[in-house]
């Protein structure tokens, strides 16, 4: 067998440790391994980005990086290359954590037995290959299921459409009078058509959840609007059962960071459920308030005076396909996917969902959503590249060819808010889309990063946005222009006010520059 030598990247700053490892490699067949030795994380990242490395031997205490972040950065630079961490005897706990972060294995310095090194390397590569293969198969399977369900639900919707059309034609007396009994039966058909329709929608939604394709577009969202919408949507259903549906908002309510259509969806599922399980003349109430424990979260509560849930069931009801066991209570209600979807939607938006109840005493479903803060939005995007020396600013703004840019006044207002957040969080910010006219475009300004950092972040943001189906739907195009803002620094003597003023002016200047370069390019 004539194999190519395995390309091993050793990242180790301790000369003694490196020499020992080199010696171990020198005992192997000369054409079996090729060793590249680097001493810094920054060098390793560049080397990995060029490709060609089969496995990384990584010391977790480097001059420019330490601990688990060494693993994170290696995997971020080359996700397909397995990492084996090198640790000291006292660091075994850390090594275990490194494996949770995605390292394939760990070797304890000074404890590497004769010939154990090549075996560990080959095992790591092989395990990694199997893992990748399994992931790929899983992805294919999910994709198939996704396509299948999407196809099936599409095909189911067509005949359902015809049924719905003609039933409503009859109900609306477009084909002549109905006697009361006929009308009642038609209403029953209609109710079931609607149930079938919502089941089809649930099916599609669950496919998306499992394929990780649930499109969520976080933005600054009004809770009051969502509550009004959901209550209006279900007012008819509540009235039909003689249930009083009301809402209660302790104002002023802060905006939350959520997808407005998703929060409406969550509320509709919860209110719809409450109506189902509440007998005639009962009460369903929607309330919103800030939590006492954590001012960063807003709580939405949907409470009912219905049959309640036994305490041991308050966890299980969020499981997929869970249905209430007592048919007298539940009747035929759906696929048992509503609360599961709800939970996914809420957790994906950074919130929590809980149920409190006692049998016969009604149920309270409470959902928390993070209060809107610019910094919290961008944090996940920056997770792996978060080791920035200076804050990172990300501006989303709107370029409508007809509508023009936002006015200077509006722009500087947003930019100031952005900078303020930026400085407080030390991480970065994301501005919500503004307005609705024209095509939205993303424009990034990355401060205090070198070229590589800025590019990596931009790529990452693009990738995230590409994953959102709704990006295209919203008519959003992503541009990868970025500018380094290394120049903006606050002098020790400078007041915060004056610094913000200066920084805002610089950013505004860069945006203007960007616009004129685009106009020139189009001319």
């Amino acid at each position, binding site marked *: 067998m004539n194999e190519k030598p395995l390309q091993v990247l050793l990242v180790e700053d301790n000369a003694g440790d490196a020499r020992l490892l080199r010696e171990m490699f020198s005992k192997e067949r000369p054409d079996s391994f090729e060793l590249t030795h680097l001493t810094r994380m920054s060098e390793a990242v560049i080397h990995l980005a060029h490709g060609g490395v089969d496995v990384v031997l990584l010391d977790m205490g480097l001059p420019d990086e330490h601990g688990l972040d060494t693993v994170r950065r290696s995997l971020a630079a080359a996700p397909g290359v397995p990492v084996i961490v090198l640790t000291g005897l006292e660091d075994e706990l850390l090594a275990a954590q490194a494996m949770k972060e995605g390292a394939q294995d760990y070797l304890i310095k000074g404890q590497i037995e004769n010939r154990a090194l090549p075996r560990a390397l080959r095992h790591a590569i092989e395990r990694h290959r199997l893992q990748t293969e399994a992931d790929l198969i899983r992805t294919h399977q999910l994709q198939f299921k996704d396509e299948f369900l999407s196809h099936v639900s599409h095909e189911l919707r067509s005949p359902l459409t015809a049924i719905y*059309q003609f039933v409503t034609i009859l109900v609306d007396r*477009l084909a002549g009078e109905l006697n009361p009994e006929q009308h009642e039966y038609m209403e029953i058909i209609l109710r079931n058509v609607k149930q079938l329709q919502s089941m089809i929608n649930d099916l599609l939604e669950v496919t998306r959840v499992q394929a990780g394709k649930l499109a969520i577009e976080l933005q600054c969202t009004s809770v009051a609007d969502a509550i009004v919408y959901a209550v209006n949507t279900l007012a008819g259903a509540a009235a039909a059962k003689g249930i009083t549906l009301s809402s209660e908002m302790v104002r002023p309510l802060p905006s939350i960071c959520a997808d407005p259509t998703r929060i409406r969806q969550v509320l509709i599922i919860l209110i719809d459920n409450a109506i189902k399980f509440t007998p005639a003349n009962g009460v369903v109430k929607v309330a919103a308030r800030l939590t006492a424990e954590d001012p960063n979260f807003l709580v939405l509560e949907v409470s009912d005076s219905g049959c309640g849930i036994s305490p041991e069931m308050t966890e299980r009801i969020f499981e997929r396909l869970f249905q209430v066991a007592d048919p007298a209570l539940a009747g035929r209600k759906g696929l048992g996917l509503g609360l599961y979807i709800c939970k996914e939607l809420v957790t994906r938006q950074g919130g929590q969902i809980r149920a409190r109840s006692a049998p016969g005493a009604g149920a309270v479903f409470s959902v928390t959503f993070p209060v809107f803060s610019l910094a919290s939005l961008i944090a996940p995007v920056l997770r792996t590249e978060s080791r920035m020396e200076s804050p990172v600013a990300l501006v989303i703004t709107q370029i409508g060819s007809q509508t023009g840019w936002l006015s200077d006044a509006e722009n500087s207002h947003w930019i100031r808010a952005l900078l303020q957040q930026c400085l407080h969080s030390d991480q970065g910010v994301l501005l919500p889309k503004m307005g609705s006219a024209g095509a939205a475009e993303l424009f990034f300004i990355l401060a205090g990063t070198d070229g590589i950092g800025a590019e990596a972040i931009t790529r990452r943001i693009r990738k995230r946005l590409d994953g959102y*189906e709704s990006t295209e739907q919203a*008519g959003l195009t992503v541009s990868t222009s970025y500018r380094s803002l290394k120049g903006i620094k606050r002098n020790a003597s400078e007041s915060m006010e004056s610094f913000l003023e200066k920084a805002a002016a610089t950013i505004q200047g860069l945006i203007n520059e960007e616009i004129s370069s685009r106009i020139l390019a189009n001319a």
Partner: protein
Amino acid sequence: MPNKKILIVDDDPDVRHGMQVRLKANHYDTFFAVDALSSMVEARKHEPDLIILDLGLPAGDGFIVMERFRIIPDLAVIPIIVVSARDARANKGRAIKAGAKAFLQKPVDTAELLAVIRQALGEPAPPEKHVVYDLGSE
């Protein structure tokens, strides 16, 4: 005033029929097309004021229909409402981009469909029913 004319492009005969009954009851004249090709022919023949377009059509889907209509000046001005069983999340944005006035998911709520048609035709909305919801006190 003569009735406004609506061309219904859908390959499902029952859906076409149901749509026709509903639109006739609301004083619109309807015509049918069953695929991309006949949509063009029928649109030329009847000069409709509005087109209701399905996306899943045999031999060239609704997007192709919109693309073709857009390049022919006298057809390009006809407002199009897409009514499809395809998933809204994946198709709504694309349909609007392709020039549709609205995207409605099948089965379409009757009131919503009529409202969107009226809006696309620039017709006044009928007097609204007033519903009062209790939204709690400030």
